[in-house]
Structures are given as structure tokens and as C-alpha cells.
């Protein structure tokens, strides 16, 4: 077990393995995205009340779901880096932040675009929307803090602490926002919460969600590889790579 753990900590090994994983996962992801998108955008039946505008759901919902999961990945990586002083975990944490933030932004953006046809406005303060926005802030906080530190080793530690604090808070935040929203039954259109979607709409959605999970993994790994190279400049294994 420990040898494995040790391996996980070594950049060259990680670089090699991630390379192998990506070789398989990347094409798979692309395939799933294409299939899901075509299926959802072209073949899935049109929503009777929203028309075609609802098809954006095939990007919006996966983005939203994976964005949240991404934060936990980041925070747990941070915890590992703090507890076992494991460089690799720190790299993972650092690299997860921008990916997660991007997905969050995609969710916000797609949602906003979706909002125009459905609610006639780009933005409403719905519970899910609001908590998504807050999640976006949490991501930004980690990214900006990392940038603000001159010394990247310190930056890593600081961000690890911050993301842990954030992880403790996320459930509280989500609960509180839900409560807040239920408190003021607002006059706005509500999400059709437990959506009674026809399975022919649901299947491509599930596929897209799976695809987005893979997408997150790929982006994370790619990000980590470049970071590893950046940090490893001058070390033997990077030189070895450069040679061949």
C-alpha cells in the first residue's frame, strides 16, 4: 500500500501513468460528448413547453453537477497534501481549481442563456442559481489566493487550508440558501424541480453527465502534466523526456 502511495507521489511515475490513462480516456470522452450532443440536440424529442431552447440542458445540467463534484476533488486533494505533505496532491488541488471554476462558469453562462427564453431575463435569484454563484466565488477565492502568493509552495499550503474550510462550509451554504429561497416564495418561475422528463430526454442527459465527469478528469490530468513539467524543469526525468 505504502509503496503505491509513494509511487503516486513521484512525478515521473505520475506523468507516465497519467499519459497512459489519457491515451484511453481522452478519445472515449470526446466520443461520448459527440454522441451525447448529437443525440440530445438533434434526436431527443422537443420539450413541449420550452421548445428547442430546453436542449441547452444537455450542457447546463452536466456542467452544474460536475462543477460541484470538482470542488470536493480539490478539497480532498488539499487535505491529503496537508496531512501527508504530498506534493502530488497539492498539484492536483492547484490544477483542479481552474477546471472546476470553468465548469461552474459554463453552468452559470448556459443557465443565464437559458433564462432569457424561459424567464425572459438572464438572471433570477433562484436557490440553485445562487448557490452555484457562491460555488463560483469559492473557486475564485482559491485561484486568486494561489496567484497572490509569490512563493508557490506557500501558495499551495494556503489554498489547501482554504479549500478545506470551504468544504466544511459548502453543505451549510447550500442548506442555508435553500432555506432562504423557500422563505421568500418568490414570484419568479421556479425550476420544474423533480423534472418529469421523458426517458428519451433523460438518457442523453445521463450520457452527457457521465461524459462531463470524464471531461473533468481529462482536463485535470492534462493540467497536472503541464504543471509537473513546469515544476520539474531541470530535473533528470524531465530532461530525459526532452531528449526523446
Amino acid at each position, binding site marked *: 500500500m505504502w509503496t503505491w502511495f509513494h509511487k503516486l507521489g513521484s512525478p515521473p511515475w505520475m506523468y507516465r501513468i497519467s499519459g497512459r490513462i489519457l491515451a484511453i480516456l481522452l478519445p472515449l470522452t470526446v466520443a461520448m460528448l459527440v454522441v451525447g450532443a448529437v443525440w440530445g440536440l438533434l434526436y431527443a424529442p422537443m420539450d413541449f413547453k420550452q421548445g428547442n431552447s430546453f436542449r441547452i440542458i444537455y450542457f447546463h445540467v452536466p456542467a452544474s453537477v460536475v462543477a460541484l463534484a470538482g470542488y470536493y476533488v480539490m478539497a480532498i486533494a488539499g487535505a491529503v497534501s*496537508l496531512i501527508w505533505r504530498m506534493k502530488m496532491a497539492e498539484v492536483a488541488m492547484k490544477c483542479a481549481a481552474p477546471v472546476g471554476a470553468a465548469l461552474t462558469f459554463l453552468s452559470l453562462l448556459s443557465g443565464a442563456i437559458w433564462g432569457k427564453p424561459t424567464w425572459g431575463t438572464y438572471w433570477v435569484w433562484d436557490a440553485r442559481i445562487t448557490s452555484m454563484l*457562491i460555488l463560483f*466565488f*469559492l473557486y*475564485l*477565492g482559491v485561484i*486568486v*489566493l494561489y496567484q*497572490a*502568493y*509569490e*512563493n508557490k509552495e*506557500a501558495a499551495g*499550503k*494556503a489554498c489547501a*487550508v*482554504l479549500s*478545506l*474550510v*470551504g468544504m*466544511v*462550509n459548502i453543505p*451549510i*451554504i447550500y*442548506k*442555508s*440558501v435553500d*432555506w*432562504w429561497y423557500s*422563505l421568500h416564495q418568490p414570484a419568479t418561475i421556479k425550476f420544474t424541480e423533480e423534472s418529469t422528463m421523458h426517458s428519451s430526454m433523460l438518457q442523453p442527459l445521463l450520457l452527457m453527465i457521465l461524459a462531463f465527469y470524464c471531461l473533468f478528469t481529462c482536463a485535470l490530468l492534462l493540467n497536472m502534466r503541464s504543471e509537473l513539467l513546469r515544476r520539474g524543469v531541470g530535473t533528470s526525468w524531465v530532461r530525459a523526456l526532452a531528449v526523446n
Partner: protein
Amino acid sequence: MSLPTPSLAAFLSASLRRQLLLAYRRPVDTINPLLFFLLVVTLFPLGIGPDPAQLAEFAPGILWIVALLASLMAAEGMFRQDYEDGSLEQLLLSPQPLYLASLTYSFAHWLVTGVPLTLLSPLFATMLQLPVAALPVLLASMALGTAILSLVGSIGAALTVSLKRGGMLISLIIVPLYIPVLIFAAGAVRFAAEGFDPAPQLLLLAGMLSLSVALAPFAISAGLRISVDAG
């Protein structure tokens, strides 16, 4: 490295006294949040129009948003001085447990900003036409809420203190963490104002407070160590 630990209680009380003395020597730190609070509360009628009914309806929210901003601004400079003049280094080197030491920082910060805000909040509340019936709940929510804000704020301050002119970065870090406090505290006051029972929210606040009292010091001390090291 084994060092004999001198009387802990004496140290903690001394460190608390020291912070309060410094605050007293520098009253601006205490007055500014209040002043700020007063200012913004007066700005609101100017900004959104003086209709009493409306004001009354939004008083809880407004009061709590301002309280939140006030304690945010106060949190920013919490460790700055100690960092720059090297007191922080000495604190880290002292054999005393950093966990408790950082707790005293948050506690002092609360005494200096949270308590005055709490005590004056009824005044501001009446300026915003908040029904008198809600004042006790306002006080309770303020006392609990500002304490949480102080603890969470210290985390942000500790993590950012070494960043030259890190400035308002702290707001990005901790405002998201403030949000539950805002929601439940403002909710409690609103409930009270509308005649419902605010007990659940107050209990929730109490729970969050005990949680942050237990956990925040870890984050704070970690943050301080990192900052001193990076400086």
C-alpha cells in the same frame, strides 16, 4: 524540541489584555466599524427612498448586510500590524499553544467590533423602522452572528496577512463563508418582526458558532504559520 510551558491561563489573559489595550490606544479601529455602520444605515434611505413601510420590511436584511461588511472591513487588518512588526514571529516561537493564542485574537476582535455593533444595533434598527418586538432577537442574532464572523474573518486575515497589499482579497475568501450567517441571522430577525418563532435559526447560529470555535483556530494557526514562513 521540548520547552517548558509557563502558566497558560496567565498567558491567555495577558494576550487578551494586550489586544484590548492596543485597541484602546487605537480607538479608530473600534469606532470605524460603528461609524461605517451608521453611515451605511443613513445612506440607505438616501439610496432607496425613505418609505417607512419598505424600510421596515428590509431592515433585517439591511442591518445584517451592513454588520457583515463592517466586521469584514475590521477583519482585514487583524494580524497586519503584528505581522509587520514581527510580533507574529515571536508568537509562533513562544512555547504557548498557537491554537489558543489565535482564539484570543478572534475573541478580542469580537469584543472590539462585534460587541459594540451588537449593543448599538437597536439604535440603527429603530432608524430603519424595525418593529420594537424584534429587537431582542436582533440583539441575540447579532451577538451570535458577529462572533462567527470574527472567527471566520480571522481565517481570511491569517491567510492573507503576508501578501503585500493583499487588501480586499480577504473579502473574496470569506464573504462566501459569511453567507449562511447572513441568511439565518437576517431570517431570524425577519421571523421575529413578522411574529413567527425565530428559535430554530438562533439555535442554528449557536451550532455554527460552536463549530467555528472548535475548528477555526486550526485554520487560523495554519494560516499564520504559512504567512510568517512566506513573508
